[in-house]
């Protein structure tokens, strides 16, 4: 008897018609202000490393 009831509940729980499911097909706007930038990560690594090294050179060369 109990098993039968459980079966009924299960059937009721999963009975979702297509209309009831909202269509959530939207996609996040990729990248925000970066847009669809396709810059390779290696180039970004280069920019980061180059920038830091340049700033360190300026810093250390500022005092004679």
């Amino acid at each position: 008897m109990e098993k039968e009831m459980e079966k009924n509940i299960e059937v009721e729980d999963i009975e979702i018609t297509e209309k009831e499911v909202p269509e959530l097909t939207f996609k996040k706007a990729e990248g925000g202000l970066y847009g669809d930038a396709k810059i390779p990560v290696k180039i970004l690594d280069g920019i980061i490393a180059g920038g830091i090294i340049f700033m360190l050179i300026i810093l250390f060369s500022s005092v004679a």
Partner: protein
Amino acid sequence: MAGRMKTRMQEIKAMDAKDKRRFWKETLLNNSLYIFIVIAIIYIQIQAPGFLAPASIINIISLSAAAMPLALGVAGTIVLTGTDLSAGRCVGLTACVSASLLQMSDYANKMFPNLPEIPIIVVLLAVVAIGAIAGLVNGFSVAKFGLHPFIVTLATQLILYGIVLIYLMNGNNNGQAISGLDERYTSFIKGTLFTIGGTAVPMYVLYGILLTALMWVIWNKTAFGKNMFAVGSNPEAANVSGVNVNRTITGVFVLAGIMYGLSGFIEAARIGSNSASTGFNYELDGIAACVIGGVSFVGGIGKISGIVLGVLILKLIFTGLNFLSVSVNMIYIIKGIIILVACAIDMRKYLVRK
């Protein structure tokens, strides 16, 4: 915290050599700007021992407090995947308006000689209103017409600059810098809050703290703040969830404008002499502080604590470079590189996640 660190260390130990190398490379690159700043602070302190003296630290905190409202305003627009290039000029306009309305009554070169004494609160509300109108124009154009904030705020920047130049030609001023500010005004902004070791902490530090607290509440404890992050993260999802996207975008820009108005009000009294160049490039400092503080251009990411840290770090590094007598021209280059590197780190994190 200690337990989490221990688990992390165990995870690192369990990695093979290749993964370990990759982990340290990622950590080093993602934190490279902070590492540079720590090295710079240590180096500057060694070269100029007065750098971290109490008086210097109070000066850095004061400079940060003055820059805070602008950075907090810009941050909201960045969270929306935008930016605000008109921030500096808006500060300039509101600073000039504040200064012109609060000059000493007996000052020889008073801009409006027949102007009666105006209560400070009236001027404060006036500049807040000016900032809000500028923000409303920006926000409305972005939200309603779907224009990119970069273009809209670039146009507003030029318009505001033109308005400043025209405004400075009014009365007896003839384009000159506005000075001779009323004692009530200067003491309201620059008056001593308290002294530490003989160095006065100005009143505007308190205002900076109050505005930061206010923004924290708006960002974290209000529906508007939650909506802002939702719109910044995914406008379409926010829209289907019942968030009024247009109103949120406009609100964020208006709030930013109010912050610029307050920033201009503080700045006018702080610097004492206001001209068309007041506020020039302030937006770049604000944007740099936000990006350093972890407000992502990808949108929907940012914390008030990060912005505060970003502003403090920027002021710390530029005050330090002044201590080392690095030329102003070089400081501009460093400022640009800091923004570039911070953006590269931000973009790198985004691409790796993707």
